[in-house]
């Protein structure tokens, strides 16, 4: 903050990389005129972890756990996307019971993710009571996931070719009971976010994204659905058990922050319905099909619906027990452009709300992009070259 005070209208407020509104590092440069935002620039990449490179040095099984750790909140869906892709490459059919358990866990994960988001967003809006209560109730679903898998986060449900555990009647009852409680609470929260006058002051009519904008900006997931864009991989291109347990799409028309709250909360009811249905009609059979340790040569893409939107995997195998290349695109990166567009014209105080409205997950989206440039720009760096570049860069900065 040692920069000169600029008192004309181009007063920029930096948000991040370290800022209380952001629980993860990223940088927004907000230009304000008084309290009104006139421009916004985003800079990502502070949490790049080199996961895509790391998976190239581990075997197919180990990568399952590496990729699960891309995101702590939607860990299961990453592993599922990867499994679906690898199973497709290997030509292995996963038994229906295992598929159903995968979907069940994915829906439980969606519940926990959406609860988490409503809490965080309420906190950004300055409504800490809602935050505290919703996180209290989120413990219910965390406990259910623990009873089911043995872990509260990173449940490691999947293995290549199936799932690790079965569901017994006792667990099924625990889940049903938990869902009854959650459903009652969810009704209450839906009432709060759509009717509380003070809360609506901070969400209604803020960050409005029209349907056209949502399509042009390429948004995905609940962010798009809140603008009435019918985009949901579970419905458009069902995978796994979603063929047998079709999901209904939840849409809202207004496209403002309230709609984003409402869409996510209404999606919870859809998840409750799917989970109950799966528990009642769980197909019997095996939990696993044996997978070869080496995967046939080939490449594939795989799309799944993560809680935040479409998750995309590209997997390429060269016939060994390690992948040749895995490329991942997480939903946040698709939604990020909408933030810098939508904040313009709003109050500074609304910026954190609009940002949080897309349910951003920064460490998921920080991944390297290599540009193909005609001027001989190197696409691949050796370790030595990278090190030399670092040294040169440092000298340049300090000479």
């Amino acid at each position: 903050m040692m920069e000169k005070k600029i008192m004309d209208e181009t007063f920029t407020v930096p948000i991040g990389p370290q800022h209380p509104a952001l629980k993860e590092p990223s940088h927004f440069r907000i230009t304000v005129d008084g309290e009104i935002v006139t421009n916004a620039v985003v800079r990502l990449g502070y949490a790049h972890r080199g996961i895509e490179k790391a998976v190239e040095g581990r075997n197919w099984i180990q990568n399952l756990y590496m990729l699960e750790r891309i995101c702590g909140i939607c860990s299961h869906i990453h592993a599922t996307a990867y499994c679906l892709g690898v199973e497709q490459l290997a030509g292995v059919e996963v038994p229906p019971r295992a598929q159903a358990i995968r979907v069940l866990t994915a829906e439980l994960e969606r519940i926990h993710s959406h609860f988490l988001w409503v809490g965080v967003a309420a906190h950004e809006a300055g409504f800490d009571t809602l935050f505290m209560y919703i996180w209290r109730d989120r413990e219910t679903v965390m406990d259910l996931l623990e009873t089911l898998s043995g872990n509260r986060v990173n449940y490691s449900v999947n293995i290549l070719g199936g799932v690790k555990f079965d569901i017994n009647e006792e667990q099924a009852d625990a889940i049903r009971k938990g869902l009854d409680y959650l459903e009652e609470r969810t009704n209450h929260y839906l009432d709060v976010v759509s009717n509380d006058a003070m809360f609506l002051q901070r969400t209604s009519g803020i960050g409005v994204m029209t349907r056209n904008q949502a399509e042009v900006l390429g948004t995905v997931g609940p962010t798009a659905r809140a603008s009435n864009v019918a985009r949901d991989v579970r419905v458009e291109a069902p995978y796994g058990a979603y063929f047998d347990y079709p999901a209904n799409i939840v849409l809202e028309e207004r496209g403002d922050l309230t709609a984003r709250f409402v869409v996510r909360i209404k999606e919870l009811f859809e998840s409750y319905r799917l989970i109950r249905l799966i528990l009642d009609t769980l197909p019997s059979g095996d939990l696993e099909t044996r997978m070869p340790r080496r995967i046939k040569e080939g490449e594939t893409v795989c799309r799944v619906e993560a809680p935040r939107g479409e998750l995309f995997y590209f997997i390429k195998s060269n016939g060994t027990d390690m992948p040749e290349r895995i490329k991942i695109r997480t939903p946040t990166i698709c939604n990020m452009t909408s933030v810098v567009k939508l904040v313009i014209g709003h109050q500074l105080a609304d910026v954190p709300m609009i940002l949080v409205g897309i349910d951003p997950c920064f460490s998921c989206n920080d991944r390297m992009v290599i540009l193909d440039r005609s001027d001989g720009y190197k696409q691949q760096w050796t370790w030595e070259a990278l090190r030399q570049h670092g040294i040169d860069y440092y000298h340049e900065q300090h000479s």
Partner: protein
Amino acid sequence: MGSTTIMNNIPNLVALLIFPAGLFLLLCGLFYEWADRKLLAQLQNRIGPRWFQPLADIIKLLAKEEVIPDGVNPTLFIGLPIIALAGGLTAALYVPIVGLLPSYGLPGDLIITIYLLSLLTLCLGLAGSNTLDRFSLVGATRTLTQLFSYEAPFMLALLGPAFVARSWQISVITTFTNNRWLILSQPLGFLVAVIALMGKLELPPFDAPEAETEIVAGALTEYSGRGLALFRLGKGVALVIGLTLIASFYLGGVTNPFLFFVKTLTLLLVVVALQALLTRLRIDQTVGLWWRYGTLLVLAQWLVTIVWHGVAT
């Protein structure tokens, strides 16, 4: 002669440094801060801090290094927290803390008290604009904007009881309001006074000036160590004084320590419940709220009171 002056002044010194202002009030402020946090936690189904937490915070802050950032006026930077706290402590001398008679009294001391309380907010705003930090600057602007919006309604709301007591001296008003529950005859005034107090103390939903998710800690972002500790003590003191004023004016007086604690803590519970129920307002919404509703409500209250008195006499 020197010794007699000192002897004569001992009660004054005690009043200034130990009781009711000074040390006692500081501890009282910390206790109310704890009660505020604990009650809020209870309402949110959490545990909340233990009783010594605010004290521990203050001791920690006092023990820490105070960083004076580049580009500030160091005299102001160090002086402002002291003035803020001193303003609060001085105000306490005119207020019936723990139900005792005010230590000092003079005609018109109500106005003095209200202005001494505003000194805190003013210092906060100045402290923010003294630094180069953007968050502080935005915070300071918001603090001062907020000051101008609730100040007039707050004053008018406290002058309502003064009007019916026909005096601007706190001790006279409290004698008048003793066992007269003005909340019944001036409910709007009471409401506005409580909400304005929340605005003054920047409690939620009026915490836009220090909204951590937008501007970190607002005007106090650059403060650490002693300065921050003094500002926090000042806020605690202002909380106690504000609650005392409202309780003694509107809630039938606080003539003994028992009544004082019962009434101020009940009032605090109301304040906490409002904090828990309401969502933070944007600064423009705060201003709009005060000028559109707050001021009008008190003016309506005034009108009713004046007409009523005209009819009665």
